Each structure stands twice: as structure tokens, then as C-alpha cells.
């Protein structure tokens, strides 16, 4: 048996410098030559470059029965054959150059190579793999037709015919199914070489079966190559398999071959399954072949097993992924896998990615149903699931999504999904409302599923458009407004009147423009009264109404867009100034340095404890503000303005141009509580700092909400914290059990 050797050692017994016999060359293509080397050709390196010319060298050497032998592949596109005379190959490692032998004869046909391999006892499989890797896969470009044909002919010539393929088919799941017989091939997983017009190499599973019409050791054989795409069955001539040092060939029988369509393959493989002999893993692979394909029809309810699968909500977040919320009732644990798939090849092993949620209602609803009676335990509640499947690609027109339920016996069923776009206002309450904040898995739900989903949904939402023209009040100011005061309102005008009254006599606000911003639904009852108040207090400004309800983020963006002032003072109605002259102080500090992006005052609660007094750290939802709740006596008199991690959302001064830039994109949060932290994060990212002005002190009270927070908003706050942590790069490690496969 021939023994493969390292090329540099292959012919070391040949004395360098001794006269060398001319060798045979096979011209494959323009500038691509095979050199058939034997004893006396020195020690050709395994790889190298031509010395003194543009060209590369690869070499396979072996120990033949009559001494060392080798096959060299020379690529020197710019040189004629005669130009190779006297050139040497330089190996990559420091070693002496190897002089190319003189070419005595030039051939074109592969039979010369076959003869060389046989004469030197070379291994056909090794030589073929060398040529395949070098010629078909090494250059990154499709090999010329001449080269491919050469290889195919070489393959046919060196391989041993071991059997035949009699049936070929393409299953519904794609790939290639074949059936025939073989003398020596056995069950297992192998590399398959396929000649069908061109040459393909792919993985393949094989299983044997007994046939009465064959004499041992021949046996029936079926194979399935799942990665074959768009094959012309009629063009398939032969299949090749490597067995030890040999190449085995199964020729496709001529016109007697049977070509099967997808339904026939399904039926045929299904019928064959009971006869196949192979490892369980291989058999499972063939079971997959005869799985039905998704036909846009729900088939889960037709399963004989006690299994129900429901998707309550499937929502797409543009450019981010798809959130699936549903439940799987499977008390006998027969489900092996649940896949999220689309008709455009989107694929995710959902059940390896999801978090199970308690759904006692499912237990309760099915406890009395005949199929589930005595199978459901009252404490077995974790039937629900939530999963966010990342997917940046846009959803294609006509693309349909479905769940594929794969059972332990490899049978499967389908559930078509109704995909909704996640920007609707009704989705978040429904999704967040279904989460139990006390669930032990809630951190994983938040970090892996809800945070990326909600952040994407919120950040991609469109700002609510204006409804009609703004309501203008007060006499127009002749001077240009330096400051626009933006006050978001949610309903009650009484809360706005108090700061209006407090600011009415403050000279700092005499030329200010007041921008009250609200949603149309809230505007109706307050517009007239607000206008009267503004006129009464001699204030100038506008009431902006959005078509939809506004959150804080949108309200500020809308106000900033419409404002005329060079500076914006954000002033929530909960902020109550007790003194005058503080705006000028804030402006003074803002203008002190160009990198000051935001300045803010000290805020006190109604009991004169501290609400906001600077924060040395960066944006973080987990750290309470400095001195929050302490008596105001904790504040040092005369403290200078200081750079801080973030300002409060309720009151800050910012340049309008900067604010428009950083607040252009909607925030990623469900609620408003972390707005100020995201604002600070964006400011920092743009190279600006937040500055706290301790000596400006305003009250900022907690307005009692009209109704207690709904459950989904409380969950939304938890989600928002996770979103900010992820945006800020804080470590989030809810569980080591992170999802595995990604689509």
C-alpha cells in the first residue's frame, strides 16, 4: 500500500545537482500544469512560489511501490511552458529553492495521470482530494469547464464501480434522495461526490436494507443529502464515496432509473423506514425526509397525541426581530422541538430559545377535556412561552411564518402564524401585561426577549403628527425669543397654571415663548382655559396638539421642533419655582463652555427633602440620585456648578439645535421614568456634559396619578431598566442558559 509523505522529504535520496530526467506535464488550462514526478526529481516543497516569475506551486507526494512519487500543480499564467526552464520553487519556510525539472512531454488527457497514480501506487482518493481542493475550492473562482471535465474523467477512471443508483428524488424539505445498491458501502454519514452536469461534494447519510435480489455482500442502500439545492435529477450520472484510500462509484442506471417528485419521495421513504438498518441518528435523518411540509394549514390539532399549541401574539419589530407569545400544552412531554420558520427560509429553534411562563388558565381550561384528563397536575402551570427571535432582514412580501412542532418520533405538525407589526399602541400593554414580574425567570424574559423587542419597537415608532395648527396666545414678541419653555401637559390645566403664575412676574421669562404640548384627546378640555390663563398672566406662546396621546419623549420632541427659541427650557408642570431670577443663572452656566450640553437646577420635594442634587455617576437605573430624600440641609451653601452624570427630566435647559439632534430618534423606553438617563447617555455620546447648578433650587412634586399604575406599565419599567443597561453596556447576565442557535 502506498504511503503518503511530506513532499520535501519524498525524494531526498535523489542527489541534488545530479542529472534529472525530463518529466511529463499535463496542461490543464492556460498556465495551469500538472507535473508527474518520480524518484530522481529531488525534494519538491509542498507549496511555494516561483523564483523570478509570477506563479505558485502545490505538491502532493507519496511513497510508492517503486520509490517516492509526487504530483505537482504549477500555476504560472503569464509564462509559456518553455519559459519554465531553469526556474525554481521557493518554499515558504527557510529552505533551499527547488529547481523545476525539465519538461519532456506535454499531455492533455487525464488517463496519463491515472496511469502515473497506478504506476506509483498512489492513493486515488488522496490524489483526487488534492486536485479538488487545489482546483475547485482553492481559487475562489469557478474552475474552467476544461478543468472540471478533467477532474470528472479522472474520477470516473480511478474509482471502482461498486453498485448502482436506481431511484432519485427531491423531498419536500429539499436535498436529494437516492436509492440503489452497493457492494461495500454501509450505513453512516459520509461525504458524497455527485456528478450531475458539474461536480458537487456534500454530506450525506446512508442506510442499508436487505434485498432478496442481491447476493451478499451487496445490499440495498438509500441516501439523503440535505444540502443539495436545485438539482436536475436527470443529469445525475454517478455518486462517489471515499472508502479508505479508494473511491467507490455508484452509477445511475440508464433509462431504467426512477425519478420521484416530492410527494412520491414522502410516500416512498415513509414506506421504506421500517426496512432501513442504521444508527438511530441516521434513521432520524430519514424520518425527517418524510416529514410533511408546511402547506399554510394548521395541523397541530390533528395530532393524535395530547398536544395543543397556540400563538397568542406574534409581533414583528422592524429591523430587530419577531416576538412570539403563546403556549404549548404537552403533558406527556412528547415534543422534541418547536421551530419558528418562514416560507423564505427563516429558521429558529424556538424551544431552545424561549422562556416558559406560567399559564394556570391553560391548565384550568384543559383539565376537564377528555384528551388531557388525568394528565394535568394543578401545579403544572408552565405552558406559556415567550421568545424574541432576532432578525434584521425585512419581512419579504408574501413571506409567511409558522411554528413547526417536531415530536420525539420525528413526526411534525404546523401552526400558521398571523404576524402583526409591533408599532401599534395595543401591543405593548398586551405583551407586558402577560408577564408575571414575580416569576423566577423574569430577568431572562426581560433581558433576552422583552428588552430587545420593546427597545426596537419604541425606537422605530413614528412621532405622533400634529393635529391642526397650534393655538397661539399672547401678543407676538417683537424680539426674537431666546428661550422657549416646553411644558408637556396631560389633561389638567390647573397644574400648568401654578408655574405660569410663578413665572409671570419673573423678568427672566418676559421674553420667553411658552410651548404647551399635549395630545388631542387631552387638549379639548384645557385649550380654552389655558389660553385664558396665558393671556391673564401676560405670557406668550402656543398650545401644540398631537393627533395621538403623547408621552413625555414625544411631547418634548414636538415642542422642540415647533419652538422658536435658541434655548429650550423643559419644565414639567410638577416643577414649581419659588423664586425669580433663576433662568438667567442656568443660561449663564450653559454658556460658560461649549461642551455644556444641559444644565439643571436642584429639585426639592414638597417636604423640602432632596429630589435631585446632582449625580456623579453615569446614567444608571440602579443608582438612586445623590442625596435623594435627605433633608435639604445636606446641601452645602455656595457650592459651584458641577458636571454630573445626568440631569432630571422635569427641568433642564438645553440648546435647541443640540436637542433636535440628539432627540431626533425616539427613545427606546416603554415609560418615561428613564428618559433623562437616555438623554444624558446620548449627550455624552455626542461629547457634551450635563451640569448641575446647586444654587438654583426649585420644587418638583410627585403628582398623584389619576389611577394606579396598570400592571403592564410596572413591567414596562422593569423592561426599561434592562434596555438602559444594555444600551449603556452594563453587564447583564440573567442566566447562563442563553439561547443557542440563532437564525
Amino acid at each position: 500500500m502506498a504511503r503518503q509523505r511530506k513532499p520535501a522529504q519524498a525524494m531526498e535520496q535523489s542527489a541534488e545537482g545530479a542529472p534529472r530526467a525530463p518529466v511529463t506535464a499535463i496542461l490543464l488550462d492556460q498556465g495551469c500544469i500538472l507535473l508527474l514526478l518520480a524518484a530522481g526529481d529531488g525534494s519538491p516543497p509542498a507549496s511555494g512560489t516561483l523564483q523570478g516569475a509570477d506563479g505558485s506551486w502545490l505538491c502532493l507526494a507519496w511513497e510508492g511501490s517503486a520509490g517516492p512519487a509526487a504530483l505537482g500543480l504549477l500555476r504560472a499564467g503569464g509564462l509559456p511552458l518553455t519559459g519554465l526552464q531553469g526556474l525554481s520553487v521557493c518554499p515558504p519556510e527557510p529552505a533551499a529553492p527547488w529547481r523545476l525539472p525539465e519538461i519532456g512531454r506535454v499531455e492533455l488527457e487525464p488517463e496519463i495521470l491515472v496511469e502515473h497514480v497506478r504506476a506509483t501506487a498512489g492513493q486515488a482518493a488522496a490524489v483526487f482530494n488534492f486536485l479538488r481542493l487545489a482546483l475547485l475550492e482553492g481559487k475562489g473562482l469557478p474552475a474552467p469547464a476544461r478543468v472540471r471535465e478533467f477532474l470528472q474523467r479522472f474520477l470516473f477512471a480511478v474509482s471502482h464501480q461498486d453498485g448502482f443508483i436506481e431511484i432519485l428524488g427531491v423531498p419536500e424539505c429539499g436535498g436529494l434522495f437516492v436509492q440503489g445498491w452497493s457492494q461495500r458501502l454501509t450505513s453512516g454519514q459520509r461525504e458524497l461526490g455527485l456528478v450531475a452536469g458539474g461536480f458537487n461534494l456534500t454530506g450525506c447519510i446512508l442506510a442499508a436494507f436487505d434485498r432478496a435480489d442481491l447476493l451478499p455482500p451487496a445490499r440495498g442502500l438509500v441516501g439523503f443529502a440535505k444540502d443539495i439545492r436545485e438539482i436536475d435529477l436527470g443529469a445525475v450520472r454517478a455518486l462517489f464515496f471515499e472508502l479508505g484510500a479508494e473511491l467507490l462509484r455508484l452509477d445511475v442506471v440508464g433509462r431504467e432509473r426512477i425519478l420521484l417528485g416530492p410527494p412520491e419521495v414522502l410516500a416512498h421513504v415513509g414506506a421504506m423506514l421500517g426496512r432501513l438498518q442504521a444508527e438511530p441518528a441516521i434513521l432520524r435523518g430519514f424520518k425527517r425526509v418524510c416529514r410533511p411540509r408546511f402547506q399554510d394549514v394548521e395541523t397541530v390539532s390533528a395530532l393524535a397525541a395530547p398536544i395543543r399549541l397556540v400563538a397568542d401574539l406574534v409581533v414583528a419589530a422592524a429591523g430587530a426581530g419577531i416576538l412570539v407569545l403563546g403556549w404549548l400544552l404537552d403533558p406527556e412531554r412528547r415534543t422534541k422541538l418547536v421551530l419558528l420558520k418562514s416560507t423564505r427560509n427563516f429558521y429558529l429553534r424556538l424551544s431552545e430559545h424561549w422562556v416558559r411562563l406560567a399559564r394556570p388558565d391553560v391548565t384550568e381550561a384543559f383539565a376537564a377535556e377528555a384528551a388531557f384528563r388525568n394528565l394535568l397536575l394543578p401545579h403544572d402551570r408552565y405552558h406559556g412561552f415567550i421568545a424574541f427571535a432576532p432578525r434584521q432582514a425585512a419581512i419579504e412580501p408574501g413571506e409567511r411564518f409558522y411554528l413547526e412542532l417536531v415530536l420525539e418520533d420525528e413526526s411534525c405538525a404546523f401552526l400558521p402564524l398571523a404576524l402583526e407589526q409591533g408599532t401599534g399602541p395595543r401591543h405593548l400593554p398586551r405583551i407586558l401585561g402577560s408577564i408575571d414580574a414575580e416569576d423566577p425567570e423574569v430577568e431572562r424574559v426581560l433581558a433576552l426577549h422583552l428588552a430587545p423587542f420593546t427597545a426596537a419597537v419604541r425606537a422605530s415608532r413614528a412621532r405622533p403628527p400634529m393635529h391642526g395648527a397650534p393655538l397661539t396666545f399672547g401678543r407676538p414678541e417683537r424680539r426674537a425669543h431666546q428661550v422657549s419653555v416646553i411644558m408637556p401637559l396631560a389633561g389638567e390645566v390647573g397644574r400648568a397654571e401654578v408655574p405660569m403664575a410663578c413665572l409671570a412676574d419673573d423678568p427672566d421669562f418676559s421674553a420667553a415663548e411658552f410651548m404647551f404640548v399635549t395630545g388631542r384627546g387631552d387638549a379639548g378640555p384645557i385649550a380654552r382655559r389655558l389660553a385664558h390663563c396665558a393671556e391673564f398672566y401676560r405670557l406668550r406662546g402656543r398650545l401644540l396638539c398631537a393627533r395621538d396621546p403623547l408621552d413625555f419623549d414625544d411631547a418634548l420632541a414636538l415642542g422642540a421642533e415647533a419652538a422658536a427659541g435658541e434655548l429650550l427650557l423643559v419644565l414639567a408642570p410638577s416643577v414649581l419655582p419659588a423664586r425669580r431670577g433663576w433662568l438667567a443663572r442656568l443660561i449663564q452656566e450653559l454658556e460658560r463652555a461649549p461642551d455644556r450640553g444641559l444644565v439643571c437646577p436642584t429639585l426639592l420635594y414638597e417636604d423640602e427633602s432632596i429630589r435631585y442634587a446632582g449625580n456623579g455617576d453615569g446614567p444608571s437605573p440602579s443608582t438612586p440620585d445623590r442625596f435623594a430624600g435627605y433633608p435639604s440641609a445636606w446641601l452645602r451653601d455656595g457650592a459651584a456648578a458641577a458636571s454630573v452624570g445626568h440631569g432630571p427630566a422635569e427641568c433642564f435647559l438645553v440648546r435647541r439645535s443640540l436637542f433636535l439632534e440628539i432627540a431626533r430618534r425616539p427613545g427606546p423606553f416603554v415609560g418615561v421614568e428613564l428618559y433623562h438617563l437616555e438623554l444624558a447617555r446620548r449627550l455624552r455620546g455626542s461629547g457634551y456634559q450635563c451640569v448641575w447648578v446647586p444654587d438654583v433650587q426649585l420644587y418638583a412634586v410627585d403628582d398623584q396619578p389619576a389611577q394606579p399604575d396598570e400592571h403592564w406599565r410596572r413591567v414596562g419599567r422593569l423592561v426599561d431598566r434592562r434596555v438602559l443597561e444594555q444600551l449603556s453596556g452594563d453587564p447583564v447576565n440573567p442566566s447562563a442558559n442563553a439561547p443557542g442557535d440563532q437564525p
Partner: protein
Amino acid sequence: MRILIVSHGHPAFSIGGAEVASYNLFRGLGRLSGCESHYLSRIGPPFAPHRDTPLMSLRQNGRETLFWANDYDYFLLANRDPDGLRRHLERFLKDLAPDIVHFHHVLGFGVQSLRSARAVLPDAPIVLTLHEYLSICHRHGQMVKTAGMQLCQRASPGECAVCFPEIAPAEFLRRELFLKSFYGLVDAFVGPSRFLLDRYAAWGLPAERLVYLENGLELGAAAPPRPLAHPGARRSRFAYFGQLNPFKGIKVLLEAVTRIPAEVWGQDSILYVFGGNLELQPPAFREQLGRLMRTAGQRVRFMGSYKGHELARLMREADWVIVPSTWWENSPVVIQEAFFHGRPVITSDIGGMAEKVRDRVDGLHFRAGSAESLADSLISALRDQGLWERLRARIRRPLSADEAAAQHRGLYARLLAGRRGATALAGDPGEPGSAKAVA
């Protein structure tokens, strides 16, 4: 020396003996040179918390801060929101950085607050003043059995479960171990009565960490003796100050008054009852009390509740103060107040009351829970003409808040010196024979 006094309530919003004692100490310490005192008290409903922090000031003094907490486990004396303690109490402790943290209760804050203090201030001594037997006894810390109001001498899981059949003995063991896991962090337990300290020593607190220190009083001028209508008139006005609940012995007192013969009681004797919170008591108790009041008739005058600043004026009308509690008590403030105003005290012969009032020296003892025995004492008070003067003459003036603060400062200094010594020892590289070398 910066001292933080932590109390379960602020007397501006919640009157009680422990609240007053802790606040008096805070103020007394604040007046001592070299001391900077701060006061942190728990607050709860009906006050509303801020949205983002349980800390608040409610416009109190700049050194007085409140902590809103309302998620409390009364069995384990535990805060059900340890995250709130970690995020806010520990932040406050860290920022204030007191040299001493002195808890006057863990109610409301939860016993875990001791661990918060130790976590943030590893070198600051922690002091805990024990105001009743709450750690030992689940029945409001009174060590009175649920059946028949019998006095309890000793707590154990099995005996406690007899009082509370719905709670398994194992739960009482859990409770005890849970509490003691935190008490191990305390450097000194202060008790204003030796009786109470003995009870806690028997419960298992280390005797070397139990310190007797009396509470101090913040009072103005003492009330003069009640002017008598004529020479030879009797000292026949009795007064009861306190809550009207089943443990305070008001029923015993009313029964005793009705048992005194008319010729002894005479026309000049009166029992004034200054007390409130009757509306919060069980209906059966209220009904019994009403019946007794009707029986006592003109002998008793129910005066309703009172505020602390009214005490001196009310005391002017009284000759004797009666403290008839049927539970052990600790160091009732009313006894200190009575002595401050020079009023002899007639009291039950048990616990902290028997310790604070010396029988026939500055007051009279009667058998706890016995209306007959109390009636005998009242008859002695009415018949023995010189008794009131003799007892009054031997009354010792109670500690003022400043004096109590000075005593506490001495304790703090000793604890700090001890801590420094311990720290120095821990920093010792290990001389032969040192704790570290042995370890």
C-alpha cells in the same frame, strides 16, 4: 462624634414611650459638646412616600430624616423590602457616615436594618435599645399569655405555640434564630430596666453586651403639689395616665375604686383617667370598661387623651399616679414623669414597675392584677395622713435628657475605644498570643 439615632416613629407623628425616649436622646446628644446627633425615623401611612425614594424630611429639622416603610412582617419583625433597605437606607448611612448607629427599635424598618448598618459601616458600633420584650414574645412583646392574661415567665417554641396554636413551634424557633442572627451584629443592648435586661439575658443575649441606661426626660418646670382646700385636707386625687388597653390594668383600677368603702372614699376622692385609643380596643373590652365606669359613677372622671405638653398642667390636679399594668412593663415613662413632678406612684409589684418604684419608699406596690390588693393600697393612701409627704420626700429626681445623653455618650466612647482596639488587633500582623496568631 456623629451619632445616628434610629427610631420606629417620630414623636411629631406618632406618640409613644420609645419614640419620645429616642427623640429626647437625640436632642440631648445634640446639646452635648463634641456630639453631632441625627435622627432617622420610620414613617408610613397615612403619609405618602415620594415616588423615587422612601427617604423624606416632612419639613423637620435638617438633622431629622424619615424613612417610609410599610411592608413589614410582624412575626419576624422583618422588612419585606430588603431592596429598599439596600438601595436607600444603606445609601443614607454611607453618606452620613455616623460613628455610632443607635437603634431604638427595629419595628417598621425591620430587623435587617441592623445588617444594613453593619454592611455599610463596618467599624461603627451598633447600639440597640430594648423597649419591651418583642424579640422574645410574639404577643406584642408583653410576655402575657393569651389564655387568661397570665404572666409569662419564659419563652420557648413549644410554650409560644400554646399561646398561638395556629403557629407551629418550628416557626417560633425560626423566628428566634432569625432575630438572633441580626442581634449578633449589635455591640451593645441598652435597657432602661434591669428586669428587662435579665429577661433578655435569659433569652440568650450575651450578658456582657447588656447595658443598663435609663431614658431621660425633656420636661419643663415640675408641677407644684396640688393646693389643698384647707389644712388637714386629704391627698385624695388619683390619676391614671396612659393607653386604655387590656394590658394597662385599667379594669383592675376601676374595680378597686368601686370596692373602697364609701366612708373611706368620701366626697373628696377622685380618680382621673387620662387615656386614649379606647376606640381601637376589642368591643368586649370596651363594653367591660363602660360597665365598670358606670359602676364607679362619680368616683371616676374620664378625661380623654392628652398631649405631652399638657402633662404638667394635668399633674397639678393629682396627688398620686397609679400604674396598674398587668404586664411586666419596662421603664414606664409615666413613672419617671410622676416622679419628676413629685407624685408618689401606686403600681403593680412586677417587672419594671416594681424596679422603678420602691415600695413604701417613694410609692406603694400592690399585687399585680388584684383589685383587692390595689384597693388596700388606695385605702392606705387615703387613711395614712402623712404617707404622701413621706413618700414624696424620698422620690429621686429622674434623669434629664441631657444627663441621659451624657451617659450614652460614655457608652459610645467605650464602644468606639473597644472597636478601635479590635481593629488594631485585627491589623496586628500576629504577635505571639494575639487573637490573630491563635487563629
